[in-house]
């Protein structure tokens, strides 16, 4: 029993069709409870008022935007090294979700920034780094769309993902050098003292778990769609040959 068994599309389809309802249910449950708890059962912040509550969407989506790229990096590596098609398709399936998460983080940040900082946008290192991350997603998805042959596309996008990861990190620290920040530090941490009071932290953890599970649900769903689309193409090709 090893993880590589799931590289077999059939095995992957069987396991994911069994797991998908459970993951979906868990995602909905933790998202709903986290958001409802966060929105209706936490006190208003004494300085930010009720705007503080956007944190329950902003922070988890920002987290998933970064983790999605990390997942694409791992699956790209798996594709380049072991040539497992499911891995490449998972990377392809994840990219638009990651891009959407990046957009959600940027937009909720802007909505919160307008009353709090008095501006929709500032060239702050964190904001800028996210905008750059969005551009990387855009290029990655565009490259998938531009190449016809699926294996070539998988190879090229994997190489782009590896190089892009290096440059995304470089940009992250280059923008720190370039401008001073307006954005506050990390909201949650495992080893340091929390920056967020416990009343806000618990629903935040819950909605972060919810966003993680939501991401998993969507990736599984989209990967299954990609596998089916490829099967369909193979069948059509066979039909034409006959």
């Amino acid at each position, binding site marked *: 029993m090893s993880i590589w068994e799931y590289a077999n599309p059939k095995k992957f389809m069987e396991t994911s069709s069994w797991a998908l309802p459970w993951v979906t249910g868990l995602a909905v449950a933790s998202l709903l409870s986290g958001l409802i708890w966060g929105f209706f059962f936490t006190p208003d912040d004494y300085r930010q008022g009720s705007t503080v509550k956007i944190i329950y969407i902003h922070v988890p989506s920002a987290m998933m935007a970064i983790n999605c790229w990390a997942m694409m990096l791992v699956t790209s590596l798996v594709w380049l090294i072991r040539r497992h098609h499911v891995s490449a398709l998972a990377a392809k399936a994840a990219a638009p979700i990651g891009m959407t998460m990046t957009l959600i983080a940027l937009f909720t940040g802007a909505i919160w920034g307008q009353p709090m900082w008095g501006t929709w946008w500032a060239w702050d290192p964190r904001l800028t780094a996210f905008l*750059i991350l969005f*551009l*990387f997603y*855009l*290029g990655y998805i*565009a*490259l998938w769309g*531009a*190449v016809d042959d699926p294996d*070539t596309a998988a*190879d*090229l996008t994997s*190489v*782009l993902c*590896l*190089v*892009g990861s*290096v*440059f995304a990190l*470089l*940009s992250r620290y*280059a*923008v720190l*050098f*370039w401008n001073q920040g307006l954005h506050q530090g990390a909201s949650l941490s495992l080893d340091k003292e929390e920056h967020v009071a416990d009343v806000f932290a618990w629903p935040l953890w819950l909605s972060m778990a919810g966003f993680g599970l939501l991401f998993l649900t969507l990736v599984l769903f989209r990967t299954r769609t990609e596998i089916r689309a490829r099967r369909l193409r193979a069948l059509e090709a066979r039909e034409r040959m006959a």
Partner: protein
Amino acid sequence: MLALLLRDLRLATRAGGGFGLSLAFFLIVTVLVPFGVGPEGGTLAKIAPGILWVGALLACLLSLDRIFALDREDGSLDLLATAPIPMEGAVAVKALAHWLTTGLPLTLAAPVLGVLLNLPLPAFQPLLLSLLIGTPALSMIGTFGAALTVGLKRGGLLLSLLVLPLYIPTLIYGAEAARRGGEGLATATPLLMMAGITLGTIAILPFAAAAAIRVNLR
């Protein structure tokens, strides 16, 4: 490898090679800026380092799709792939040729255009240095982007979409060095950071670009 370099240089400088086009583009962009922001010397002096860097970057971008596209059309890229020199070496030489015909002329032209933009006197030296250190990175990253898109029919627009985000760190340090020079601050840190990026790209990207070309020739 030397033969390849000389061949690329000769192709670029002869008629139809596109040498000089990026220089002309750089000139036009620089001339357009004062029309856009107004002719006051103070404003121009303030934005000159950034404009010169962005202009050089765009001019560099303009000539990228020539790196491999022509070679692919006439089949010499296939010959290169089967030649006894490793693909990585060929890619590095291609990037060097691109830098010699684009990056270096742009660097040498930048101070002249700096005069047009009322660039502060102490900024000239750091601008020249930063372009000298930074443009090799632009050529190398661009070669990687060109290698990714070489198989595509109309890859030009996609090429810019892929390459521009990769240019961001170089641009930040380059423009920052020139800006700090203009304000009389120390410029060593951004220059060193940019030298690091340039050396890193030269060390890593030939492998990525060669891998992409092998995929595209498959």
